[in-house]
């Protein structure tokens, strides 16, 4: 078991996170008759703008999440404005998973205090359809704190920086986070 863990850590150390912008790929929904290939490393203005909008939605999702989980009781009326705000940035599992997370934290008497440091990058953009955001979430300063003791309730031995992947979709004329998954076993 220890060997397996060491191997995992080694792999993580020798394999740094990919450069975000360099790997950005663009897939257009319909084939374009232009002579230049649709996959390009030089980002055209439309894509750059789309990427910015996607990152805004992703960041908006995170901002709402961080504030919701700071006072996680999902049934507290005081939190309803935050959930309404979240709806601007999230649908489907991204929303329902946050409910489950908030419920469980609240049920355990724990709140997430502080703020994570994010490092998101966009890939697989399909204009007006979908995109992927990969991230490296640094939770050094975003910790589960017990309401009763005021102390950290984090399980010992966990990585503080783990990767996360997210899909966004173009829905109701805007980009929204469709799903978000932290990969607790992938350090970055």
């Amino acid at each position: 078991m220890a060997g397996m863990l060491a191997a995992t850590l080694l792999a993580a150390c020798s394999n740094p996170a990919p450069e975000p912008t360099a790997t950005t790929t663009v897939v257009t929904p319909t084939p374009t008759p232009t002579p230049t290939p649709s996959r390009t490393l030089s980002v055209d203005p439309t894509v750059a703008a789309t990427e910015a909008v996607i990152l805004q939605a992703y960041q908006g999702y995170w901002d709402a999440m961080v504030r919701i989980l700071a006072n996680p009781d999902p049934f507290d009326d005081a939190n309803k404005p935050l959930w309404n705000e979240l709806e601007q940035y999230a649908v489907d599992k991204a929303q329902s998973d946050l409910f489950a997370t908030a419920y469980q934290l609240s049920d355990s008497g724990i709140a997430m205090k502080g703020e994570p440091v994010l490092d998101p990058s966009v890939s697989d953009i399909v204009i007006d359809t979908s995109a992927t955001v990969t991230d490296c979430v640094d939770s050094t300063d975003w910790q589960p704190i017990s309401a009763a003791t005021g102390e950290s309730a984090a399980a010992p031995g966990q990585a503080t920086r783990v990767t996360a992947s997210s899909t966004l979709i173009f829905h109701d004329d805007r980009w929204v986070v469709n799903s978000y998954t932290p990969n607790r076993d992938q350090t970055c």
Partner: protein
Amino acid sequence: MLRRLALAVLLALLLGGGLTDAAFAGGPVECPPLLPTCYVEVEGPGDPGTPADPPGGGSGSSGGSERKCIFDWGPNFERKEVPCYDDFFGWFNDESSCYWKLTDSQPPDDVTWEGHYPDGAIYDVYCPVVFPGSEGGRAWRATPPPGYGGVTITPAQLAQRAVDQMKLTGPEIHMSIPVDRFATVGVPVWLWTEVTATTWGPTSATASVPGLSVTATARARQIVWDTGDGRSETCRNPGTPYYTGRVVSPTCQHVYERSSADQPDTAYRVTATTTWDVTWTGGGSSGSLTVTRVSEGSVRVGEVQVLVTTS
């Protein structure tokens, strides 16, 4: 607190065994879906997740006038009372233990329709605990889920409906004197009822509406036999069917002291009232109630005329 062994195992899998068993010593480890960090749950007095008792403390015997919503994921999980409705998350569905809310915009191009548009509707489903088979998220349904829009009937009202379904009756009256014969003053008349599900019990029935189901069980407690002569016998048993060779009933009888000759139809009117104790459970609450059922019969009582002749 919510999940126990299952999560510990899950975490062990997720972390590839990186955590030693000692790490679990503080309590169960929770890994809600969106957190990069798992946490150890510390049970303390401030823990809001105390199971069972409703917040209002209404655990009285006749409680349950309102529907209660219990988050119940089976034996490995703790049962929790949760709100039946939330402005944002919608209505609690007892079957899935998730909240269901009609999606505001019902966008026709949403993949959730799976080709059904415009039949049915799409919902946002929020589950307090997420695992395969109950993840939450968007879902299509042809009809609203159980409990959607609220259950207007209370469990107690539904229990009454279950009682109606049982078709409880009064006793099927039997006496040791056939109807065409006369009982005799001073001689015990045995009283009994045929023992069936509907005359003595126990019997049970379940009444349901979408989102709520109540099961009631009824047992007869006693039969009060009003024997028509101004007296009555209370028997906490169904009585004993008459058999020859015995005069006194081992369980339930009445001894008439006067003839029924002066009664209407020259018979005593017998009114037998069965008292039923009903207990019910469902919709997160339980309760009890008492109902009575009446049967009627009659008996003619004569005096033995002893003709004494003297010579």
